[in-house]
């Protein structure tokens, strides 16, 4: 749903034990980043409302604050806050349940908002020459595209590889099961396909989480790495930052991230580093994806005379030069790109027809979708790829049309027929979908069954239920179990 935060980093964080959170929340930058990125709107309101309250707020008061028709959103927000260890339940006088913001988080967020004495949570600005944002973007784009190109294997299409990936990068991709090396050939995996079709900001998160996970293995404290990642996200683009204050682990992380293009340093020995746009937009919604990086990634990397990649980034952002794909209702696809990477991505699920210097055309067919599905690409991935990279003209056209028709439904960028058909084609093959979770059964009475079932639905974990059999299936059981206990 709309309230769901970007799932990948969220799931990872959620799996962490409470003590890790305690350590993480010591840093104001981390508290701020998690607040901004992971929480739904309503949860943000709750946190902010409670942040400067001295006493815990009675649960009843909080519940009264929310409109009765928005119970679902409220419970969802509270549930997320609980899972991230931000809000805690306490009991104040008279046995009243109350909520309060947990302490390291509250203190850190307050520090973030007001500032405090403690040094370097938001980086220390170095007195070094600023590097133009265009250059940083160019660097980030080159590195990131190199990574993607390595995975997809664009070398087969005959472009020269100008980026040398370090060994660490390759190992990480392998460890994350994004690629497999078979007889010294790089083969992309099912996860890898899913990965390359995502938008840039999701990809970066994915890589970062992989990195944090693997950090333990090479003897680094994952908390330290994670909070450093959050620190990076709060830095300013185009500004140099001191390395002096960093710990050795953080320095090591820094040089690893430089390989991905997430930070830039002139040389590994330089005394300062520059975050690139990949880092600074980490905590933004993916709407910030209309930034030059994804624009350039999808556009024209080879320095073709296009307005997108060659001119300055400010220019780009004005022109919204991000999308380049046009799909018609007759399944024809036109992509204004000359990037081998993008072409090979599109070729994954399209039958290509013609290739011009800056344009390829093709058609989405049953065969091409089947082929893609067989490779492990899902319809949703294709659709999200297409809509992320839809040409501005398509956005304009379709949004204006759908807003004039029916205001209730959010506008769709792609032609609905195409979207439906892609899904149907996938369904031909893909008939079973697995969801891991927990089954609740053997309820004695219908009433006993109904209450937790409704609760599960409200907090948004319910997957399936059968009133007749008095069973329901949830993705997460802790809260439901707690609910059941509380009713006993």
């Amino acid at each position, binding site marked *: 749903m709309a309230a769901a935060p970007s799932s990948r980093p969220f799931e990872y964080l959620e799996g962490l034990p409470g003590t890790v959170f305690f350590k993480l929340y010591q840093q*104001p*930058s981390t508290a701020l980043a998690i607040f*901004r990125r992971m929480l739904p*709107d*309503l949860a*943000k*309101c709750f946190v*902010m*409302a409670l942040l*400067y309250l001295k006493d815990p707020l009675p649960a009843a008061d909080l519940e*009264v*604050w*929310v*409109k009765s028709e*928005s119970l679902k*959103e*409220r419970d969802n927000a509270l549930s997320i806050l609980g899972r991230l260890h931000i809000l805690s339940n306490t009991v104040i006088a008279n046995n009243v349940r109350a909520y309060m913001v947990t302490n390291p988080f509250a203190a850190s967020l307050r520090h*973030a*908002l*007001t*500032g405090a*004495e403690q040094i*370097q*949570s*938001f980086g220390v*600005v170095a007195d070094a020459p600023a590097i133009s944002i265009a250059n940083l973007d160019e660097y980030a784009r080159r590195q990131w595209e190199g990574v993607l190109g390595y995975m997809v294997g664009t070398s087969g299409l005959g472009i020269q590889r100008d980026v040398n990936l370090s060994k660490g990068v390759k190992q990480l991709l392998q460890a994350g099961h994004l690629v497999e090396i078979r007889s010294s050939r790089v083969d992309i995996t099912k996860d890898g396909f899913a990965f390359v079709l995502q*938008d840039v900001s999701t990809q970066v998160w994915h890589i970062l989480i992989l990195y944090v996970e693997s950090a333990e293995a090479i003897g680094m404290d994952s908390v330290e790495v994670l909070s450093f990642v959050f620190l990076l996200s*709060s830095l*300013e*683009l185009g500004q140099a930052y001191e390395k002096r204050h960093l710990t050795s682990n953080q320095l090591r992380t820094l040089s690893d991230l430089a390989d991905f293009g997430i930070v830039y340093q002139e040389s590994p020995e330089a005394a300062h580093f520059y975050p690139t746009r990949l880092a*600074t937009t980490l905590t*933004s*919604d993916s*709407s*910030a994806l*209309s*930034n030059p990086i994804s624009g350039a990634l999808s556009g024209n990397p080879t320095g073709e005379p296009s307005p997108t990649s060659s001119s300055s*980034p*400010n220019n780009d*952002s*004005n022109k*919204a030069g*991000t*999308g380049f794909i046009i799909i018609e209702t007759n399944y024809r696809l036109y992509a204004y790109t000359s990037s081998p990477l993008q072409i090979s991505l599109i070729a994954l699920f399209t039958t290509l027809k013609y290739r011009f210097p800056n344009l390829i055309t093709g058609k989405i067919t049953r065969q091409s979708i089947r082929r893609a599905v067989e490779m492990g690409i899902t319809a949703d991935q294709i659709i999200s790829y297409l*809509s*992320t990279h839809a040409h501005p*003209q398509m*956005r*304009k056209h379709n*949004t*204006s049309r759908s*807003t004039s028709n029916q*205001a209730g439904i*959010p*506008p*769709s*960028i792609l032609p609905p027929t195409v979207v*439906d058909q892609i899904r149907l084609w996938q*369904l031909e093959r893909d008939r079973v*979908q697995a969801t891991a979770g927990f089954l609740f059964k053997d309820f004695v009475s219908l009433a006993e069954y109904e209450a937790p079932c409704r609760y599960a639905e409200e907090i948004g974990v319910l997957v399936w239920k059968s009133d007749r059999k008095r069973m329901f299936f949830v993705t997460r059981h802790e809260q439901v179990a707690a609910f059941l206990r509380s009713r006993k």
Partner: protein
Amino acid sequence: MNTIDATEHYSSSAHDRPPSLLTVILDTNPHAWAQLSQPSATALPLSTAVANILVFLNAHLACNYANEVAVVASHTQEARWLYPVANPPTKKPTDSDGDTPMQQQRTTTNRPPPANEMNKYRPFRIVEEQITQNLHDLLATTTPKDLEATNSTLMAGALTLALSHINRRTIAWAEAHGGETDPNAATAGGGAGSTTGGGGGSAEVTRSTTDSGLQSRILILSVSSATGSAHQYIPIMNAIFACQRLHIPIDVCKLSGDAVFLQQAADATKGVYMALAEPKGLLQYLMMAFLPDQRSRRHLILPTRVDVDFRAACFCHRRVVDIGFVCSICLSIFCEPLEKGECLTCGSTLEMGDYGAKPAVVARKKKKKKVRAGANAPSATPTPTPTPGP
């Protein structure tokens, strides 16, 4: 199983929640602040209030990476931008890729920050520095002579400035984000509306902005009383109607005084109106009632004023009336039937209806006069002042 389901067609990552733009209008009327900071239990000096507001602004910025803030000071002599300020030459025309607060103020960022503010998130610090600096400048340039001249505040100007900024940002945002709103199409719609006096165009902008465009709202921190702003009645009303059209809620946080127009503003635009009983608790009020943006407000029960004072101020004596006499030509409001039957505003001769409300005045049968010589009877050159003179 049932992935083919109409609700899911439209869920795509391509439209995320749009950022919101919060414009704060800070009433810096020194008269009112002087009163408010008199040592008492409820005293709230301006400096404390500004500090609270800064935390509030930071909180708003913290909510979303692309959120923006703007602050206008509504002073006694002028309405002035506190943030962002156009004067530094580095401001880019439309740096609209979402991270405006970060890029805009390169001037302040290049010098190393003072050590004690070292670890503040940069956008927060930039906003803070600019606001405090500009506010300081503003107060420093206010002379005692200025203060003697008037004790009101230029709310209409501040509102108009705020609206202009919102308009600019909305256009820029729409341009940058690939045709959520095509500004040309929108203004072409305005062409349709232009004959109607600006109807359709803005409505169209509105429709697209409410769903997917930049969400804007205005918060007024008001300390002055209504009497001071009576001479701006019409401009304020015009601004309120503009907000209403554009679906921009005007939130009013009333620290002292009493402003009838602002109550109406909040009511007409579905904003929040709160008169603070405890000005000291400003921050908590701000965080709780004024921080949620339009999207969250759908789920929250917000404090709105239920009984709104809709009484009007008459143009002749500026009395607040509940029954008035209205000129059918120019709609000026008078508190009593006019002596000569001639409208004080537009000068047309008015026939008194047979109103028995005021026995003192016998409904006089007046000979109807021609309104005025000249074709099409412009009631005057463009100078009839509709406002009640002070």
